[in-house]
């Protein structure tokens, strides 16, 4: 039996960061930069784009299902106030718009990671099981 532990949480956090920052980041080396600054390879670009879209949809839907709107709101507030602590203490310079965008993207990745982890954490903490009713067409 494998229990959900810190390593699994870290794996989801890294995957979320890779997904979000791979799609767009304000510095370089992202899917956005690939399609805007390089020509050619249209079919590969479409393939990677569809793949990224699917991964984003999976992450967003699982976050919506396991956290709900209240959970997403609370977690966003937690991460945003954490960023605020860093800003207040001079560890993060958001006067640079690139750093500001980067901070927002990292917060989004953290919310993705929490959404992918929370059902596991909830099951480990309280024994409750999150489920998807596949016979009922839910909006999420």
């Amino acid at each position, binding site marked *: *039996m494998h229990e959900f532990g810190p390593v699994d949480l870290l794996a989801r956090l890294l995957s979320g960061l890779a997904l979000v920052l791979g799609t767009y980041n304000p510095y370089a080396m992202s899917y956005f930069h690939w399609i805007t600054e390089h020509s050619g390879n249209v079919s590969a670009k479409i393939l990677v784009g569809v793949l990224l879209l699917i991964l984003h949809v999976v992450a967003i839907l699982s976050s919506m299902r396991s956290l709900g709107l209240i959970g997403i709101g609370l977690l966003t*507030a*937690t991460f945003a*106030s954490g960023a605020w602590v860093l800003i207040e203490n001079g560890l993060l310079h958001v006067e640079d718009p690139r750093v500001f965008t980067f901070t927002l993207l990292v917060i989004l990745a953290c919310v993705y990671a929490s959404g992918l982890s929370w059902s596991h954490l909830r099951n480990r*903490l*309280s024994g*409750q*099981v999150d489920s998807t*009713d596949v016979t009922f067409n839910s909006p999420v």
Partner: protein
Amino acid sequence: MARLDINPPVDFVRLFARRGLMATTLVFATYNPSGYSYFHWVTQGGDLTTFQFFVGVGLLTCLVAFGRMAFLTIGYFGVTALSLLVIMSLIAGVGLGFFAFDDVHITTYFVLFWIALVIGVGTSWSFVQKRISGERDVLRTPP
């Protein structure tokens, strides 16, 4: 692969001890009358700093998560039953002569431990139910 027909034994004491300790830590970190709590840290320190705000939002998130998990599992019936159990244990203590009724003071500590007990039992109950009757507590897809 998690199989639904496997029913491994559960160490109930350790199960409840860990979750009860977690709930007690959370409740007492938010407020307790000793003077060392988030409430006192915020109200006695002058202006609200960003770090205090961050800790407050984090505590609120944890309390909402734990409270909701506990309440979803045991519901109004469980909260009522646990409260009745606490009150009846007081009355039984009086009836068996361990202490007199005048000695019973419902202090703030007592209420805080009561809340922590409800959250601790609430987060443990799903495991107990799964072990004894095989029923899982399942959350539906949110609308």
